[in-house]
């Protein structure tokens, strides 16, 4: 019954263009970069490993992705840091 009411009042349609848009943006960057998802994962892991040598990072709050801008492709990253400790840095 709720299902029926839901379908009547808030249709399942509407707003799917946002899905289309976000999927496309990711798709187009990756078409251009030609990196496989596993290569992307490897790059991400390596970059984070380097960062982790200098700072304690919050692994669940890591965002690293490729984005397209007018100038070309940017690697955009946001990494939450718990604590930066000078002594952590290894020569």
């Amino acid at each position, binding site marked *: 019954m709720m299902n029926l009411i839901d379908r009547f009042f808030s249709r399942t349609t509407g*707003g799917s263009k946002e899905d289309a*848009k976000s999927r*496309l943006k990711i798709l187009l960057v990756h078409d251009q970069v030609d990196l496989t998802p596993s290569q992307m994962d490897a790059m991400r892991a390596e970059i984070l490993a380097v960062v982790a040598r200098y700072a304690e990072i919050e692994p669940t709050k890591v965002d690293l992705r490729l984005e397209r801008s007018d100038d070309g492709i940017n690697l955009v990253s946001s990494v939450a840091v718990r604590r930066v400790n000078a002594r952590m840095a290894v020569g």
Partner: protein
Amino acid sequence: MSECIVITSGKGGVGKTTSTANLGVALALMGKKVAVVDADIGLRNLDVILGLENRIVYDLVHVIEGECRLKQALIKDKRVEGLFLLPAAQTRDKNAVSPENMRDLVKQLKEDFDYILIDCPAGIEQGFKNSIAGADRAIIVTTPEVSALRDADRIIGLCEAAELPEPMLIVNRFRAKLVKRGDMLNKEDILDILAIPLIGMVPDHEDVIVTANRGYPAAFDDKSVVGEAYRRIARRITGETDVPFVATEEPDTMWTVMKRWMGFSKEVAS
């Protein structure tokens, strides 16, 4: 001055052939001399969309292989002055033609025509390479869908690699109603993603199917919204600026009729 424009898309079924036919008709109606060339060797369609399929004697491959003169292969459309079709071969394949062949052919056509429109086959293989070889610029046809836009983006890259000037975009099968409720990418979304200039938006309308059934492109019909969209694109092709984008027709509902009575203008989707 004579110009060769390739109509391309990457993805099949988005309306390249329909667009080529309609733009050919619309340019001819403006008094231009136009040759439309079907470059889809082995899968010809442009003849059917134009309703000229019964008049084919020679085709593009015959011309290239020297079996006939170019003028013998060109089919004159009797409905409008100045429109000619060069059909593709149906029983050969795309390897019968090379980019050099196409460049020579376009050069020859340029002696007699103001515009040469090349209907490019789907894909990015030989047929695409042949089609862009002689072109001065490209018009990319797409629909507001992820798959078509992805392919369009790829084609933009290939046009750039081929050193063509920045292509222009036709967004086909636009549905104002779906855009309004957020279920279709709108003009801004598409231009944001593809970042090339828009040359026209064509509404998704039954006219396209009806006119294809009859072999009578919508551009001939004064009352058709699809025809009007293509006539406006043709004007933009000839360099006219400030051609307003066509108001996308919505089916009349009680509300739209009331709005019209009350003097609100009809919704403009593009």
